C-alpha cells in the first residue's frame, strides 16, 4: 500500500494568500514525497534500455561543458590552437553521442508506449527536446566560421526564406546564430529538460503494457 502523505498538487495549507507559501506548496507538490530522488525503483525497471535517458542527460552535460571551454577561448580559438581544435572535437563527438543516445531513448520509449498513464506531456516534451536539439546543432554548424558554415548557411537560408522567416532568423548572420547557439537555445533545452525529468519523477517510470495491480 502507498504511505504517501500527499498527492501531487495537494496543498498542505489550503487557500493561503501568501505567494511564497503557494509557490513552495506548488514546488513541493510537483513530485510525490520522496520521489524527487528515490532510492528504490519498481521491479519492472530491469532492462538496459532504461539507461539511455540518463546517458542522454550525461551527454548534454558534456556538450555544455565542452561548449563552455570553447567559450573561454572564443569563437575563433579552435582554428588557431591545437588545444582549441581538440576541445572542438570533444564538443562535436559529445553532440554525436547526445543524438545517438537520445534517438535510442526515443526508440525505447516508443516501443514501451511510455506515454501511457497520464504521461503524454513527458512524451511531448521529449519530442520537442529532440527538435530543439536539431535546431541547436544547426546554429552550432553555422558558428564554425569555416566552409561548412558558409555552405550550410547559404543552403539553410533557402528553407527558411521559403516559409517567410529567413529575415528574422538570418542564418547568414554569424553573430546572431552564435548567440542563439550559446545563449537562447541552450536555455530552452535546459528548461525543457528539467520539465521532462520532473515529469518522469512525478509520474514514475511507466508500468509494463498490460500490467495489472
Amino acid at each position, binding site marked *: 500500500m*502507498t*504511505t504517501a502523505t500527499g498527492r501531487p498538487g495537494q496543498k498542505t495549507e489550503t487557500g493561503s494568500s501568501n505567494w511564497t507559501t503557494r509557490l513552495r506548496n506548488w514546488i513541493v507538490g510537483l513530485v510525490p514525497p520522496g520521489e524527487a530522488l528515490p532510492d528504490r525503483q519498481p521491479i519492472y525497471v530491469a*532492462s*538496459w*534500455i532504461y*539507461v539511455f535517458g540518463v546517458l542522454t542527460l550525461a551527454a548534454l552535460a558534456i556538450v555544455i561543458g565542452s561548449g563552455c571551454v570553447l567559450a573561454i577561448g572564443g569563437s575563433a580559438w579552435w582554428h588557431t590552437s591545437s588545444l582549441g581544435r581538440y576541445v572542438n572535437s570533444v564538443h562535436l563527438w559529445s553532440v*554525436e553521442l547526445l543524438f545517438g543516445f537520445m534517438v535510442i531513448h526515443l526508440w*525505447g520509449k516508443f516501443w514501451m508506449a511510455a506515454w501511457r498513464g497520464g504521461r503524454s506531456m513527458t512524451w511531448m516534451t521529449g519530442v520537442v527536446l529532440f527538435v530543439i536539439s536539431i535546431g541547436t546543432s544547426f546554429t552550432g554548424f553555422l558558428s564554425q566560421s569555416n566552409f561548412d558554415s558558409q555552405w550550410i548557411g547559404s543552403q539553410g537560408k533557402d528553407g527558411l526564406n521559403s516559409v517567410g522567416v529567413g529575415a528574422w532568423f538570418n542564418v547568414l548572420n554569424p553573430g546572431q546564430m552564435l548567440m542563439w547557439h550559446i545563449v537562447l537555445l541552450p536555455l530552452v533545452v535546459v528548461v525543457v529538460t528539467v520539465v521532462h525529468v520532473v515529469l518522469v519523477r512525478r509520474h514514475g517510470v511507466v508500468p509494463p503494457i498490460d500490467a495489472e495491480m
Partner: protein
Amino acid sequence: MSGLSIAAEGAGRYISWGVIQISVANLTIIAVMVLLFLLALVIPFPTGHGSDDGGHDR
C-alpha cells in the same frame, strides 16, 4: 584526420544504392545505434538477488 590539418578535404567514402547515398561514417553510426538498441533489449540487466519483492516504502 587528427591534428591540425589545414588542407581542405574532398569527399569521403560513400556507399550508393539506387537513390540512397550515405557516407561510411554515417552508416557506421546508424549501424552502431541499431546494434546498441538490440543489445539493450536482449542483454540481461543485473537485478540484486533477494532484495526484490522488498517493501515499497518511501
